[in-house]
C-alpha cells in the first residue's frame, strides 16, 4: 500500500514535471515548424510558378523558332528554284508573293501564312503562332536574278495566363538561282 502510494505520487509528480517542460518546447517547435514550412512552401510555390512560366516561354520560343524555320526553309527553297517572280514588281512591297507565272502564291490569311500551288492550299505555320506582319519587297538586281527581301513578325499565342506574348522578327533576302 505504502509502496503503491509512493509509486502513484511519484508517477503523478513525474507527469506534472513532464507537462511543464513539454508545453514551452512544443510552442517554440511549432513556431519554427510553421516558419520553415511557410518558407519552404513559398519557395516551392515560386518554383512552380517559375517552372510554368518557363514552360510557357519554352513552348512559345520553340513554336516561334519552328515556325520561323519552316517559313524560312520553304520560302528560300521555293524562291531559289522559281522560274520568275510575278509580284511584287521591282521596287515595290506587298504582303503576298507570286512566283512561276502566278502558279505559286504565298499570302496572309487570318494571320496565318498560306501557300497556294495551282489551287492546292497549304498552311505553313501551326496554330501556336500567328503572323503580325509580312512584307515581300522586290529588290532591283541589274544583270542579275530577281531578288526578294522577306520581313515577317511572328507572334506566339498565349498559352498560360495573360502573359506578354513573345515575338520573333525575321528578315532575309533570297534571289533566284
Amino acid at each position, binding site marked *: 500500500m505504502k509502496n503503491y502510494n509512493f509509486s502513484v505520487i511519484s508517477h503523478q509528480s513525474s507527469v506534472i514535471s513532464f507537462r511543464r517542460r513539454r508545453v514551452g518546447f512544443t510552442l517554440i517547435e511549432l513556431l519554427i515548424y510553421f516558419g520553415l514550412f511557410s518558407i519552404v512552401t513559398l*519557395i516551392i510555390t515560386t518554383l512552380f510558378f517559375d517552372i510554368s512560366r518557363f514552360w510557357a516561354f519554352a513552348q512559345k520560343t520553340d513554336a516561334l523558332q519552328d515556325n520561323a524555320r519552316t517559313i524560312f526553309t520553304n520560302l528560300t527553297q521555293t524562291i531559289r528554284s522559281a522560274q520568275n517572280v510575278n509580284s511584287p514588281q521591282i*521596287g515595290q512591297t506587298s504582303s503576298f508573293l507570286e512566283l512561276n507565272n502566278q502558279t505559286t502564291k504565298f499570302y496572309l490569311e487570318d494571320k496565318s501564312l498560306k501557300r497556294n500551288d495551282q489551287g492546292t492550299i497549304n498552311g505553313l505555320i501551326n496554330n501556336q503562332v500567328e503572323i503580325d506582319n509580312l512584307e515581300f519587297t522586290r529588290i532591283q538586281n541589274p544583270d542579275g536574278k530577281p531578288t526578294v527581301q522577306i520581313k515577317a513578325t511572328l507572334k506566339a499565342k498565349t498559352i498560360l495566363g495573360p502573359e506578354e506574348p513573345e515575338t520573333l522578327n525575321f528578315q*532575309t533576302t533570297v534571289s533566284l538561282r
Partner: protein
Amino acid sequence: MSSKNKGQILAEILVALGIISIIIIAVYQLFAVTSQGKEFASRETQATALLQEQLEALKSIREQGWEKLAPGLYYPTINGAIWNPKPIQSPEEAEQIGDYKRYLKIEKVYRDEAGNIAQEGIEDKSTYQVNSYVSWQKPRERTISATTFLTRFRDNLTWVQTTKADFDAGVLQYTETTQVYDGEVQLQGGCQANPQGPWIFDDAFQNTWDIHPSGRNDIKLVNRQQGQVYQGEKALAIVNFHGADSKLRNGENICTIGFSRIEFYAYNSASIEQSFQIGGNWIGKFKEITLSPQSWQLVSIPYEEISGNNEENLNFIFLKPGNYQPDTIFYLDNMTLSGGVGGYFQVGTLTSSIFDAGSSSSFNRIEFSAQTPQNTEVGFQAAASDNPDGPWEFVGPQGTSLDTDLYKNPTGEGIFFGKNIGRYFRYKAFLKSFDGKNTPVLEDVTVNYSP
C-alpha cells in the same frame, strides 16, 4: 534525453532545408541555362537569316559591277530598290537591325604560282575574300560569321574583231589587211610565190637589173674572163663615175619583199682608198662605203638604211662618188638579197586598236580563227591597262614579251593571270611564215572579258 532529441530534430531540419535549397538552386540553374539556350537558338535562327541576306546582297552588288566592290568594311543597304555597299570605318558603325548588328569585310586575295590562294603571291584582282558578320548583345554577346570567296561574275562579254576596218584601226607591221571574205590580216609579200633563193646572181645580172636608163655609161655590165670577177664566171658591173649619179634599176619582175639586206662584193681598182655612196628608191638616204685599194670587199647593208623601209620593193640603187676622183672605176659583183627568205615576211605583227570595256575588267580568254598553211603560225600577246595611253605591256602565256611566248590555241587560252586587269585592252597578233612560201591568214579575234 529530451533536450538531446530536440537538437537532433533541428539539425535534421537544417540539413533537409540545405539539401532542398541545393536542389532548388540546381533546378533554377537548369531552367536558367535551358531558357538561355532556347534564346540562343532563337537568336541564331534570326541571325542566320540576316547573314544570308547579307550574302545575297553581296552577290547582287557584284552583279551590278565588280568595281562596286573594294577592300574595306561595309554593310549592305537598299537604296532606290537596289542593294548598295555602305562603307564604314570600324565594326562599331555596323548596321543595327533590331537587336542585331551586321557588316562585312572585303579583303584582297593572293595566289601562288600554282594558282592556289595563299598568304602571299600575285594579287588576284578578280577574287575577294569576304567575311560576313552578324552579332548581338543579349542575352550574351555573340557573333556568327561566314567566309566566302567572291569572283567576278563570268558575264561572257566579248570583244570581236573581224572586219577589215577593225584590223585597219590597228598598227600593222609587215602585215596587210585584205577583204577576201569579211576582212583578214596576212603577211606582206608574196610577189615571189616560190622563191628559189637569191635572185641576183652575177651571171644572171642582166635579167634582173637594168642600168643607166638615162643612157649615160656610168655603169656597164661586162663579160670578163674567170679570175677577173669575184666568184662567178662572166658578168660583173663596172661603175665609172663621170661626176654624176650612177644607177642600177631592178627589172619588172623582181620582188625584194621578205628580204631586209642587200649584199654585194665591190672592188676598188685604184691604188688608194676610195669611197662611193649608195642610196635606194630616190628618197635621199645614202650610205657611204669606203674601199681599200685593189681588193674585193663584202658590202652588206640593211636596205632600210638606203631605202624607205623593207616593206617597199627596192626598185632602184643609186651609186655616186664619195671622195670623187676622175675616172675612178669600181667593180660590183655577186649582188644578192639576204636577211630573209623572200616571198613573205617571216614575222609580221598587228597591234590592235584600243578596246574600252567601260570599267575595270578582267580579260579572261583570247580566241581566234586563222588559216595556217604549212610552216606558218599565228599567235597572240595581250596587254591591259587602266589608261588609254598605256603603257602597253604585251605578254604571252608565260608572262614574257618574247615573240615565242604566244597564245596559239585558236579555241581559246586563258590570258596571263596578273596582267589581265584593266579598263583598256589591246592584243598583238604575230603572223609567222617560216619559209616565206605561204602566209597565215588571220580572220577574226575574240576576247572574253568580265566587267
